[in-house]
């Protein structure tokens, strides 16, 4: 469903994403993991067609996001890092606007908006002005706009960031419920989130894919934290490795 091949993105001389490839199949939830600044947001922006890649391709349902952009974009629901809300619109008006923009048929708009409002728990908030919502509700409206046209592919950039534990739980349940025959890519740096809701994990570090693995294939007894740190360390620079050794030596000196 989502096929990312040899993606490279350079901002001038700075290369944010280097030869990234991975695949997410229909019905899968793919967790996109990595430290801050690893290139997660850049990769997601390329997948959704917001910006072009310097090299490489992305196919959504077999459609190239660059050459067949309109058709490919029709199939994607996207929640960017910051929920893209118009601060002076009301929640319902905003969702209706997004539904129209994403090509929901006129007769189906009411139903589509009602449905996502229910699913994301916004029933009491439809008359509120987006700019006055709390962070948690903004996130829900962001999720609602990504879902309103019932897309087969969902791209969620840190969907649970800034939420309180109860909201995090609710949003996770919601995402898991959404999977079905959809393909979902979500980025996060909360490790338990991935092991709880994802089928597959892709770890990205310093712009490169450090690991692509099914969650069920991770050996039992190994925590995702260990897998993550191991993958990152393997990709780490020689200098960092050197620094680690020095620390170990210092540690050894103390214990001696």
């Amino acid at each position, binding site marked *: 469903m989502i096929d990312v091949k040899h993606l490279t993105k350079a901002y001038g001389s700075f290369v944010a994403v280097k030869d990234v490839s991975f695949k997410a199949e229909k019905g899968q939830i793919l967790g996109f993991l990595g430290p801050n600044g690893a290139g997660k947001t850049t990769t997601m922006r390329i997948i959704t067609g917001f910006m072009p890649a310097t090299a490489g391709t992305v196919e959504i349902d077999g459609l190239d996001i660059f050459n067949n952009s309109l058709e490919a974009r029709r199939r994607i629901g996207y929640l960017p890092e910051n929920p*893209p809300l118009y601060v*002076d619109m009301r929640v319902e008006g905003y969702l209706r606007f997004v539904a129209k923009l*994403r090509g929901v048929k006129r007769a189906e708009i009411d139903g589509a908006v009602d449905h996502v409002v229910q699913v994301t728990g916004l029933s009491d908030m439809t008359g509120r002005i987006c700019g006055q919502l709390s962070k948690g509700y903004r996130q829900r409206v962001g999720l609602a706009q990504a879902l309103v046209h019932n897309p087969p592919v969902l791209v969620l950039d840190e969907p649970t960031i800034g939420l309180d534990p109860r909201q995090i739980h609710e949003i996770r349940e919601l995402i898991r419920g959404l999977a079905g025959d959809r393909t979902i890519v979500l980025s996060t740096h909360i490790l338990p989130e991935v092991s709880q809701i994802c089928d597959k994990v892709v770890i990205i570090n310093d712009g490169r894919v450090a690991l692509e693995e099914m969650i069920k294939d991770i050996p039992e007894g190994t925590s995702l934290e260990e897998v993550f740190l191991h993958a990152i360390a393997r990709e780490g620079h020689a200098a960092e490795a050197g620094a680690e050794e020095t620390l170990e030596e210092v540690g050894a000196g103390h214990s001696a």
Partner: protein
Amino acid sequence: MRNTITIAGKELAGYFVQPVAYVVLTVFVLLGGWFFFAMLRQFDEMVQLVQMMGQPDTLRQMNLNTRVIDPLLHDLSVVLVIVMPALTMRVFAEEKRSGTYELLLTAPIRTGEIVAGKFLAAGAFTLVMVALAWIFPLILIVFGNPEVGVMFAGYLGLFLLALSFVSVGLFTSSLTQNQIIAAISSFGILILLFVISWPAEAGGGVVWALLKYLSLPEHFSTMVRGVIDTSDVVFFLSVVGTALFLTQRSVESARWR
């Protein structure tokens, strides 16, 4: 087309829920009222003066169109130079800053439709502004005897002028995420188009003729005098077309950088 209307509808509704548009509207109409009052006072005084001196020929030559509406429209055009950049500065810059730009550019719509929708909305708002400024001709029609056709041509000129300001404003707004930068640079371009013919007043030759052709007041003045010349209308429409084309390129450039 449907997407263009969706964008235009949302934008137009946006103008009426945020204060900038109301401030622009108020400043425009209030200043217009003050100018109108001043012109009318002057006109009145001159009429009395000419009457006292007993010159019926001069009195017959004086009319409301050239003495009141003509200078009023020129003053309003200067007000527009100042307020229109404030109206258009947020159109793209705000979307970029708040992150809604990602929503627009990842939606299955063409950049041309985004630009067209935003222009339609700003154009409709401009129409409201110019229509409200019809209050002054209306007052003259009720209490005096001006030539309606000439006033209509002048107001059409004012509307076309405002549309070209809007399109320049959309272009500068599409270049930045900073509204101040958008406003100042569109202000700069508009002022330049106002004074571009200054060095050409005396000279001849092709370059000077070109500068004269590019001058906005040059074309506007013809319409204010009551002449709707196709070449002036075409000029304003080509300013709009060029600026909108550049805007579309600028928005689209996010896809090739």
